[in-house]
Each structure stands twice: as structure tokens, then as C-alpha cells.
């Protein structure tokens, strides 16, 4: 891995033609892929836990645990609400891949920005968005951050460094590039993290956005979530690459492969990449290997999934189980401490959920406000000429 930022442009070895002009920096023909935290084979009999190499303090580890649990339990609560038909749209789970969102986002500083995918609820929570906002959004309530105008995590909070996505996959990559262009002019030393799926990387917007960020050496971290599916489509029909990390080569940036179900590894890799980016190294691609255990959304029958696959991942490679084992083995906490955290989280969720449920739905006329600054649009169904 050649990861030190090289600000000076390198001498060409390519003949007189090339010498005629400056060349962009970067070594020739070398894939700068780090696999230090890549997934590894569970050894016989010894179940997977998390990586040993970490600078995280016990308090931080427990905070990570809290966010993992929070993510899973908020989603379970959402499924509950969905079954009660209180959720208006669909519910999209990150079951089995929570560590990626939580671990990567936890490595950021307060001024840093993220733009998550629907399956990165964990990152949204780490950035300080409250479960109550999520519940209110899903239930299309007036008190939700979009006032019922948009769904799930489709909103934003500039103060918290959270930019919600739109549905159109890939589009947020250029938007985050723009966030960093703005920050650069404002002399803010922040990094931005954009999450993208194995599917979303096939979009033109992804390509244009990451390429532009790379050329401008902007501190954009792209977290590519290899969760084996895009809706029903296997990754082998999205890309002929074996690893998503290989795509970094086409943008002249380094990449990492990380075990996306190891929350500590996700943290470490992102911390490392964020430091590099913040120092002026430019964009980095991080591929997190994980697995989507639920269907695309709650209604999906997963008919396209191999028979025992989900069970394998549930049994042997659940990110929460792995981290729990790790915390206990490493003596970071005893079981009762973990239980206490879970109770606290559960209580908090119930409180927030109750708050959200108590919110009214928005009033219909509110739909007319705010397309433009201070605008109100006239009701299209009440033609003025007939109202006279």
C-alpha cells in the first residue's frame, strides 16, 4: 500500500511524449489496496470476533456497542410499526451489516459530513440524529424533520454533518464532492463520507462524482458496501471486478478492503483513511464486505437467495454477536453491563417512538409551502376563474 500523500508530481518514465507535460501523481500500474483489515477465515472451532488492533478505549468500545444495538433495535421497532401499518412506506433493513455503518461513521469528527444509504441507519444515528426523527419520518408525521414530505432518512441536518440521500443511487457522490469544494473555499478541514452499494457503483453519477473528487484531491471517503445484492441482483451482475476496491485504480486513489461485520476494523480503516484524506491525500475508497440478510425491503421474498446462505451468516457472522463476544473476551465489559446498555437503549427507543406516535400527521395545506424560499403555491384544483 502506497498511501502517503505525494503532493509533488512524479517524474515520468514513459518517453519523450510524456515528458512534454506534467503528469498527475500516483505510481504506475500498482493497485494500492490495503487488506490489513480484510475478512479472514474463521479458524476451526473459534468463532469470529473483532480485530485486536485498535486504539479505541473501553468507553468508546461500549459506545460503539450502544450504537450497534441502537441501530438494530430501532429497525426492529420499525418493523413492528410496519406490521401495525403505522409506517406509511417500506422498511429497509440493515440486519447483519450494521457494523459497517456504525464503525465507519464513528471514526469521524463532529464537523465531518456523511451521506448514507438507506441501509446506513447506524451512521445516521452515530452522527447524532435522534431515533425520534427516524420514527416520525417513517410514520410520515408532522414533527418529523421533513414534516412528512419525504420518507425514512431522506432529510438532512447541516449542523450535524448529515446529508440525507435521495432515492436516485449515485447522485450523492457528486453532491458530497461539492460539499468538500465548499469546505475547501471556507478553509474547513473536514472529510466527507459517502456510502454506496455494490449496485450503486454502476451508476454514471458515482463515476463522475468520485472521479471529480479524485482529480481535485478532495478528502472524500467512499464506503462501498459489498453486501452481495442490489435488490435481487448479485454483485457478479453489477461488476466484473472481484472486489469493489479494484475500482479505486480507475480513479487513481488508494483503497482498503475491510471486514464489514467487524465494527472495530471498520472504525480503524476509516480512521486511517480519514487521517490520510484530511492531511491532503485526497479521496479513498473503502470496501466493506458484508451481507444483506433481509430482502431489499420488508416485502421482498428473497427467492433469489441460495437456501442456507442467510442462516450461515446469521449463525457465524453476525456483527453484533461478534462484537459482544469480543467485548466479553477482552473483558471490556461483563454481560450485565451489556444488558444494562440494551435496557437503556430500549427505553430510549420506546420514549422516542411514543413521541413520534404522538405527533399529528401534517395538515394537507402544508404541502403548498416552501418550494422556493418563502413560497406558497396556489391550489391547482381550484381554478381562479371558476372561483369568482
Amino acid at each position, binding site marked *: 500500500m502506497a498511501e502517503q500523500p505525494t503532493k509533488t508530481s512524479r517524474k515520468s518514465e514513459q518517453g519523450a511524449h510524456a515528458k512534454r507535460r506534467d503528469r498527475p501523481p500516483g505510481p504506475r500500474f500498482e493497485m494500492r489496496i490495503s487488506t490489513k483489515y480484510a475478512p479472514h477465515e474463521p479458524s476451526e472451532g473459534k468463532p469470529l470476533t473483532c480485530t485486536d488492533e485498535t486504539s479505541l478505549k473501553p468507553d468508546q468500545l461500549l459506545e460503539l456497542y450502544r450504537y450497534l444495538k441502537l441501530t438494530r433495535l430501532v429497525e426492529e421497532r420499525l418493523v413492528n410499526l410496519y406490521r401495525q401499518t403505522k409506517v406509511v412506506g417500506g422498511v429497509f433493513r440493515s440486519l447483519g451489516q450494521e457494523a459497517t455503518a456504525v464503525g465507519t461513521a464513528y471514526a469521524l469528527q463532529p464537523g465531518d459530513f456523511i451521506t448514507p444509504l438507506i441501509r446506513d441507519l447506524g451512521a445516521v444515528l452515530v452522527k447524532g440524529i435522534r431515533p425520534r426523527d427516524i420514527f416520525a419520518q417513517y410514520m410520515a408525521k408532522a414533527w418529523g424533520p421533513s414534516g412528512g*414530505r419525504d420518507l425514512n432518512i431522506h432529510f438532512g441536518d447541516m449542523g450535524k454533518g448529515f446529508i440525507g440521500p*435521495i*432515492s436516485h443511487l449515485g447522485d450523492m457522490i457528486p453532491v458530497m464532492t461539492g460539499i468538500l469544494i465548499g469546505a475547501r473555499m471556507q478553509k474547513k478541514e473536514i472529510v466527507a463520507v459517502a456510502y454506496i452499494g455494490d449496485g450503486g457503483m*454502476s451508476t454514471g453519477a458515482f463515476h463522475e462524482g468520485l472521479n471529480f473528487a479524485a482529480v481535485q484531491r478532495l478528502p472524500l471517503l467512499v464506503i462501498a458496501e459489498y453486501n452481495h445484492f442490489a*435488490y435481487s441482483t448479485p454483485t457478479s451482475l453489477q461488476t466484473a471486478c472481484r472486489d469493489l476496491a479494484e475500482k479505486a485504480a480507475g480513479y487513481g486513489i488508494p483503497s482498503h478492503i475491510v471486514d464489514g461485520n467487524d465494527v472495530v476494523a471498520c472504525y480503524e480503516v476509516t480512521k486511517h483513511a480519514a487521517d490520510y484524506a484530511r492531511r491532503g491525500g485526497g479521496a479513498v475508497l473503502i470496501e466493506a464486505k458484508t451481507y444483506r440478510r433481509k430482502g431489499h425491503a420488508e416485502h421482498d421474498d428473497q427467492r433469489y437467495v441460495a437456501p442456507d446462505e442467510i442462516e450461515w451468516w446469521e449463525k457465524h457472522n453476525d456483527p453484533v454477536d461478534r462484537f459482544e463476544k469480543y467485548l466479553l473476551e477482552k473483558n471490556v465489559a461483563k454481560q450485565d453491563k451489556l444488558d444494562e446498555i440494551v435496557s437503556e437503549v430500549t427505553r430510549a427507543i420506546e420514549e422516542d417512538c411514543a413521541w413520534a406516535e404522538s405527533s399529528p400527521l401534517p395538515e394537507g395545506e402544508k404541502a403548498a409551502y416552501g418550494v422556493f424560499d418563502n413560497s406558497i403555491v396556489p391550489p391547482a384544483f381550484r381554478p381562479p376563474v371558476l372561483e369568482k
Partner: protein
Amino acid sequence: MSTAVKKEHRSARPERGGPATMVEAIRQGIWEEMERDPTVFVIGEDVGAFGGAFKVTDGLIDEFGKERVIDTPISEGAIVGAACGAALMGMRPVAEFQFIDFISAGFDLLTNYAAKCRYRWGAGIPAVFRGPCGSGVRSGPFHSLNAEAFFLNTAGLKIVEPSTAYDAKGLIKAAIRDPDPVLYFEHKKLYRLPRLREDLPADDYIVEIGKAKVVREGRDLTIITFGAMVLTALDAAEELEKEGLDVEVIDLRTLAPLDKATILASVKKTSRVIILHEASRTGGIGGEIAALLSEEAFEWLDAPIIRLASIDTPVPYSPPLEDYYLPQTKDVVSAARKLAAY
């Protein structure tokens, strides 16, 4: 591909004709065309093993194989471009957008390549671009689009949108056989609506592109509409009938090119007209129709041309907001009542 390992699942060949919902009617149409013509093939996201997000293409991959039912990456530009290329080779692609909202990512290739190829050098692009459109199902700003107005100013694209199962089947077949690019919009609210379930003929038939249909005759007032709003218009007409108002309802079916003859004949008869559509009013297809009427039926009009449509905002998610956004039956009734009295 995960074909080898996927759970046992195989959808049966649909009946030829018989009782069908709209989604079944479209599937019948595609299926029959693929049987009839080996150049017809399907391409899009999750259209194969999964059968499409709305199951329109369910079962096709088992019957026709993955060379003729192609699961693509998430690349709407590539879907449109590849459909164009294959069409140049003499194939007849039926390309799916998972939601019509994602047509925006194929907009460049649709308006620049597909639409202009024949005009520029005589090379027709016999491709169909289809997908679920429409609001009213609580899907928020990015899964509720009515996209027709994006394409009306680009010469070279035909646009159809059925409101019945019969028309859905007839129009998809006509679109597939058409020598030029056809955008085929399917209102997702109608896909499985029991009200639309009807008996389809077992024989091969098409519904001609470019022909509107008078779905309800009346003398007092014309409502020009299409898609899911046809039902709204019919409901309104029924209510107005009780008040003694005799409303004619036109289902455009083809949005480009418009069936001027049918539209003008109706308005010349009733002299009062409401144009009703689901997309936002400003910049919607209603403007084009109003312009047509205000030029070519000017002498026959007894009252202002009324456009009823959604308000000029994105499509909001929350039910009260979306209900306010969309024109409701009561809005149509009220406007028609006042227009008749004008």
C-alpha cells in the same frame, strides 16, 4: 448468476387472454410478443430472476433464458443506450425502468440518441421504454413521478399510458411492433386494481398508438385525461350525472402524438372542457392540450379551458399532503359544476 442456487421458483406461462389485471395484461403482451418474434427481448434491473420490482416480467427468464431477459447493473443510461444499439441491429428491446423516476438518468440517451437517430440518418430505433409511474401510493418525491412532460418537446418519441387492462395489453404489443421508440408508462396504482380486472380476448390484438378513446359519452362537458385519472374522471362524471350533468370523458391513451381528431370532435360537441392530469399543473401536458384547443376549437368554446392537476410541488409523502397535492374526485366535481354553470 445465482440461478443454480436460487430457491425453487418458476412462474407459469400466463394464459392467452382470460381475466387479467393490468399487470397481468402487460405480462401477457410481452410474453406473446416474445413468442411471436425472436428479436423481442427484455432488459432492465431485476427483470430476470426476480421478475421485476412489480413482477411485470415474472417468469420470462425461465421461458426465454437470460440472453433474452437481461438483468442489468444499476445503469439507466446503459439500459437506454444498449436498447438503442440492439434496436439498430434489428432487435426489439423492451427496456424497464424500475420506477419511471429513474428515467431521468436515461434522459440524455433517450432525448439525444433514441429520439433523433431516424431523423439524422434514417436509422429507426424500434425500442420500448417502460416502467411504473404515478403518485397516490405514498411513495414520496422519488417514486411517484409522472414523466410525460419531460419528453413532449423532443420530437421523435411516442408516449403511451393505458388505463385499462385491455389497452395495456394492446398498447404494449403495438409499442413493441412500432418502428420507432415508444415510452410506455404504467400507473403503479392500477397494476393490481381489482376494478380494472377484465376478460381479455384470447386472440392477438393491438391498440393503435395515436388513438384516444371516448370512455364515457356526454353532451355537457368534456374531461380530457389519461392513466389513473381516468378513474377519477369517471367517478366524478357519475356523481355529476346525479345532478343532471352529462359529462364526456376522453382517455388519451397516447400522449404523443396526441389524437387531435378525437379531442377536437368532443370539445366541439360539448364546448366546455376540463383537462385533468396527475403531474403538477405548470408545464404539464395540459398546456399542450389547452393550446391545441384554444387554437383549433376556439370558436366552439363557451367557457375558459380548465386544467386540473397536482399542485406545483414535488410529490409529498405523508397521506394528507399527498391527498392535497393530487386532484381529487371532489375537486373535479366541484370544478365541473362551476364550469357547467359558467
